[in-house]
């Protein structure tokens, strides 16, 4: 149990780097800030890998499964005499796995950015924000309790806001940052209410107490009912709403495609590999609770995930901006993970979905970061995000081309690349649970292969554009991370994940289901072949297909008009329907009635002010009359 006290530095170091570079960001030499940031994150990478090695590799798993270690736990705030907020560090299989994911991707992005962001205005600020993000993300995954997760949840949200809005002189970036923050904030409103409900009934935030296998921590919440469902179900659904917001699940997904306005390495780190999977992590973290609740909470997770996976994959086929294709692909893959969690059981073979979800999270982080960084290299070379400005780049960017191909194969699920193994596990898990979901999952697998290779062929094959400036391969700071991630995307699948990460911490042997592997592989290959036929050579075929689909195609490429719907709701209902009337009401009713009182007073004063004529003699007369009247009264009184 002992010997993990150094893990505190994994969290603290990025925070210190943030303070240092943030405070001095205007004066410090940009390059120096970059090196400080990168040095800091590489140190946490070493520490994280060391933690993982110490946790997983130093010994075989003990009898009771992988242990839960809390090297640090202190009281941060006391709400009431019983409800305390703790901050601490919790090490268990999923948090250690997340440590590895975050530190690896974050390190790669830090190094990559040294090249990609070179010479940008605000380079030091960029590294300060990256450090802030790393700090928050580490804090989030290492959280010992629900409140700590919420704490860092908001902080990753704001780092994301700051980084999306990094190019703050671009109105589109500002709008995207604002949208991302507000949409996730809305989701967090649900999350917070969920926490309020759950903590009120259970009297604790602590994961250990909440996930107690005998269900004692949540018994009260499970027995209380509200509107036909148990309070526990309500709380879990609300908490999932928070997760869905962060992980861009339908219908709270609208911020993610816009978030691509941020610098590309940021998209790789935050909006592909780490922050957006926080929702998955949250559900996984509370998985025992979800499992113990009898209500439909897990089904909601599964169906939301499945629907988002399909929905996003369909949209991805029609997008022209390469980063947006990748964004929808991310949504789709996260939907996959959610679906896997939703169909999972608890323990042994039934818990395959959980393992698969975490596995896919791991492999996806590697190959999606690779895809984004590769896209960054392409954008760096072509100075455009739009696919129609690209083509034939394989000749100019051989390294990028190679690594990008690896990532595409990985995400499409072609053996022996990483995605194949994790996807296979997800498919197996869904097949055992629900044939409809299984069908959706297979369909999404095919679509994934199609849109990824559409992207690949249109960038690297197709027509050579005769570029004005000959595109050139990125500097070493950029291609080294690409290579490393490519290696990880290739070998990552061979990690026996079931041995390490399961819902109940007990190792499970995993094996490949050959039927499913062949089915899924076949569908993926079909997708790739279709993409190849359509896009390898420049042809009018794709446009013809699009035209023949007419309105359907337009609807999809406009993302099913969800953005427009939101726009209408916020502009018409919230602004015009509530905010404007409130402001009007305040000025013209509330304030006017206050002014009305003042006006009445003035009018009353005007009515009686004629008495005050300014003629001394009038005053004297009334004085005399008054005296006489008083005297008369007085005499009358005396007489009586």
């Amino acid at each position, binding site marked *: 149990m002992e010997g993990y006290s150094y893990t505190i530095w994994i969290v603290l170091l990025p925070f210190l780097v943030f303070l240092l570079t943030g405070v001095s960001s205007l004066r410090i030499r940009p390059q120096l800030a970059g090196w400080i940031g990168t040095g800091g994150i590489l140190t946490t990478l070493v520490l994280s890998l060391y933690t993982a090695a110490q946790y997983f590799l130093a010994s075989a798993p003990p009898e009771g499964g992988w242990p839960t270690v809390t090297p640090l736990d202190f009281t941060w705030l006391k709400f009431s005499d019983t409800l305390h907020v703790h901050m601490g560090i919790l090490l268990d299989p999923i948090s250690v796995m997340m440590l590895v994911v975050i530190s690896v991707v974050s390190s790669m992005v830090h190094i990559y950015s040294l090249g990609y962001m070179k010479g940008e205005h605000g380079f030091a600020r960029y590294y300060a924000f990256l450090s802030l993000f790393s700090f928050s993300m580490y804090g989030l995954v290492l959280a010992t309790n629900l409140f700590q997760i919420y704490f860092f949840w908001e902080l990753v949200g704001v780092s994301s806001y700051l980084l999306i809005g990094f190019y703050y002189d671009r109105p589109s970036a500002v709008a995207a940052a604002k949208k991302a923050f507000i949409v996730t904030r809305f989701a967090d409103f649900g999350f917070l209410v969920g926490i309020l409900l759950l903590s009120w009934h259970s009297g604790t935030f602590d994961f250990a107490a909440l996930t107690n296998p005998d269900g004692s921590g949540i018994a009260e919440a499970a027995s209380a009912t509200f509107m036909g469902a148990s309070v526990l179900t309500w709380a879990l659904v609300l908490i999932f709403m928070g997760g869905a917001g962060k992980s861009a699940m339908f219908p709270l997904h609208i911020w993610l495609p816009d978030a691509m306005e941020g610098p590309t390495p940021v998209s790789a780190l935050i909006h592909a590999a780490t922050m957006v999977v926080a929702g998955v992590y949250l559900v996984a973290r509370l998985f025992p609770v979800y499992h113990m609740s009898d209500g439909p909470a897990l089904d909601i997770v599964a169906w939301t995930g499945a629907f988002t996976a399909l929905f996003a994959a369909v949209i991805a086929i029609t997008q022209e901006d390469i980063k947006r294709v990748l964004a929808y692909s991310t949504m789709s893959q996260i939907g996959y993970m959610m679906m896997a969690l939703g169909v999972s059981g608890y323990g042994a073979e039934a818990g395959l979905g959980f393992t698969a979800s975490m596995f896919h999270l791991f492999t996806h982080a590697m190959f999606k970061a690779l895809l984004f960084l590769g896209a960054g290299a392409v954008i760096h070379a072509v100075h455009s995000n739009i696919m129609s400005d690209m083509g034939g780049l394989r000749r100019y960017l051989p390294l990028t081309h190679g690594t990008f191909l690896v990532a595409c194969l990985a995400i499409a699920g072609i053996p022996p690349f990483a995605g194949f193994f994790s996807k296979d596990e997800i498919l197996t898990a869904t097949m055992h649970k629900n044939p409809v979901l299984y069908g959706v999952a297979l369909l999404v697998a095919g679509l994934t292969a199609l849109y990824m290779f559409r992207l690949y062929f249109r960038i690297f094959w197709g027509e050579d554009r005769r570029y004005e400036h000959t595109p050139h391969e990125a500097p070493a700071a950029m291609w080294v991370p690409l290579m490393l991630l490519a290696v990880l995307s290739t070998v990552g699948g061979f990690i026996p994940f079931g041995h390490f990460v399961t819902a109940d911490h007990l190792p499970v042997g995993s094996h490949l289901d050959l039927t499913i592997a062949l089915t899924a592989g076949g569908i993926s290959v079909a997708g790739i072949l279709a993409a190849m036929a359509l896009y390898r050579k420049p042809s009018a075929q794709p446009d013809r297909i699009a035209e023949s689909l007419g309105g359907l195609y337009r609807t999809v490429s406009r993302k099913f008009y969800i953005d427009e719907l939101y726009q209408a709701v916020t502009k018409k209902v919230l602004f015009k329907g509530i905010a404007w009337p409130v402001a009007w009401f305040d000025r013209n009713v509330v304030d006017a009635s206050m002014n009305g009182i003042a006006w009445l007073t003035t009018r009353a004063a005007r009515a009686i002010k004629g008495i*005050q*004529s*300014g*003629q*001394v*003699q009038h005053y*004297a007369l009334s004085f*005399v009359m008054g005296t006489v009247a008083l005297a008369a009264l007085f005499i009358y009184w005396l007489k009586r």
Partner: protein
Amino acid sequence: MIPGVSLLEILTVSTLMFFIGVYGFVTRRNLITILMSLELVLNGAAINFVAFNKYLYPGQPAGQFFTLFLIAVAAAEVALAIAIVINLYRRIKSVEVENVNTLKH
């Protein structure tokens, strides 16, 4: 104690003086006349003081003291009032009371 004259007669005179003064104060428009009316009011009061002292409390001189005091104050007051009137005349070239109404509202 004036032989043959009762308190009532003296009081009648002083009351007449007082109310003539009040009447003049309220109706006259010239500030100087108003001032003169004021003097009548004061002197009416002064006569009352002396008369009450003489007829009702002969042993106590308080009424006479008051009268002396009143004469002194009236003198000071007249001096002040004349000064104000003169200043007013310099400013608005009039001693008519209607023209002095800037104190209202």
